[in-house]
């Protein structure tokens, strides 16, 4: 079972952004698989670092595209990016500090973390840019 399925409604119409969204979904699903099937905490930890780097790069590109297209809610969207980057580091810290960890709850949190921003912010971006 995968955590997030790619859906066409996720598409923003910008090839590079969509490509990175798919990559991120793959990464997050990979992390989820590690956690639930293999119970491999170390590998999951490494994955989180990777997700942080990828998502930081993805936000950087998305912000550039928003600036170039003079997206009206740029600051709002950018603030959400910054908050999400803080959040994922907090999730990593929690995960690192805790040995007895609820894998299921953790995965759900990560999945929500991704999809909420996706549905609220990126969907609007799509409507504007598309």
């Amino acid at each position, binding site marked *: 079972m995968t955590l997030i399925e790619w859906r066409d409604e996720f598409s923003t119409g910008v090839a590079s952004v969509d490509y990175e969204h798919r990559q991120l979904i793959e990464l997050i699903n990979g992390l989820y698989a590690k956690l639930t099937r293999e119970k491999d905490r170390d590998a999951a930890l*490494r994955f989180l*670092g990777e997700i*942080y780097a990828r998502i930081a790069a993805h936000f950087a590109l998305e912000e550039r595209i928003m600036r170039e297209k003079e997206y009206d809610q740029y600051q709002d969207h950018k603030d959400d990016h910054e908050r999400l980057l803080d959040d994922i580091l907090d999730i990593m810290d929690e995960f690192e500090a805790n040995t007895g960890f609820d894998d299921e709850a953790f995965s759900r949190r990560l999945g929500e973390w991704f999809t909420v921003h996706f549905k609220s912010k990126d969907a609007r971006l799509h409507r504007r840019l598309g």
Partner: protein
Amino acid sequence: MYHLGALSFFFFWIVAVSGLYLYVVFDTSVYGAYASVEWITHDQWYLAGVMRSLHRYASDAMVVSVIVHLSREFFIDHHRGFRWFSWFTGVPLLWLLFSSGINGYWLVWDDLAQFLAVNTAEWLDWLPVFDGQMARNFISEARLSDRFFSLLVFLHIGIPLALLLGMWIHIQRITRARVNPPAGLMFGTLAALLALSLVKPALSQGGQANLDVAVAEVGLDWFYLAMYPLIDLTSSGAVWWLLIGLTLMLGALPWLPPARRDPVAVVDLGNCNGCARCFADCPYSAITMQPRSDGLPYAQEAVVDAGLCASCGLCAGACPTATPFRRATELVPGIDLPHLPVRGIREQVLAGASAMSGEGRILVFGCAHGAPLTTVSGQSTAAVTLPCVGALPPSFIDFVLSRHHADGVVLAGCGSCDCNFRLGIDWTEQRLARERDPQLRSRVPRERLATCWAGRYGGKSLQRCIDGLRRNLSASSAPSATGTSTEQRSA
């Protein structure tokens, strides 16, 4: 010292503004010139006279600031490698500056002007192109025409304009060149020049020039006119060869040994999505964003121009993939320095962290051009050397503090306006203040972070900065449990 270039620009503007005013009240005929300058100096001393003095003293000051500027850049090795362009384009500016000044002295048409006119003409006549024609203009009063004199006035406008164009070209390779000194320095300098102009106004020498009478004695302005005694002592040809030789030598300096340069930044397309942050932060415009070449569905990729790259690493400091939290794949950012990769910075951090023990462990990230870091290392202090403090991706600070590799972080670099790579300190401060991407995460405890821009001789201030941070850390951590910091350390 680092405002010398900007100061030269400032002097240029003073000279230009005062020159414009003088042009209005100056009579451009041979027989009117001297009288109008006398009127400027004595009758309207409170405005035109001050303007004349400002014009004189600011141009002298410009020679001084330019000479010190170029000596400084030379002695701190700022003339070679990627900086060759600014150095090379600066050399012709010296010719333009000196010819503007010498040309200006003629316009007063006093004894000194006569001396200069005759000597310069003779000197120029040594060149085959003039073939003895120049000096004939000055053989006697009758030969000198108003038209020729007007030509001199126009030259005195044209050469400075060429100088300004040259100055503009001189700073083309520099993004955000500083062409205005700080307000304090600017007003202070202007006040000093004004005071000098009032106390010791610039005066003409002797009476009106009379070409039929040879000038016996003149006082020289050594800032501009040092070459004339030399012509007198040797010959026109000797001085020509000396100046040509000096110019060629100055022009060739960037390529003379000992040449050395670090390898330039490299882009790793697998980690570059074309976000253009490195492009925005490069102080030398060495990065361009070009159409994607590897087939991935991105629009652009970063491309490094090896001729412009200074190997400062600010690009790696700006790259979002350059984060030490990455561990699943090898830590290769989208853009990196081959001789000091981000991976190497991470290794230095981990080595430094494991070498430290005790309370109040402080990790210093220092630039190679700032205070020497060997002296600060000790039992509870470790140092990581960077090409420039701006080469540090801000997430390293988060990494060090959140993973408890140290209790405090100090960033040390060049003097605050004197960054060796121009923008390293500015960008770092803006990243820390969350005004520039990549921003230091807001969750990072700012009280555990200190910056010290003290320059290469600032070893003592750096030590004070480290001690100060350590005192603050122990003061704030005293009430809480202190056990967590060392126990939770993990790689």
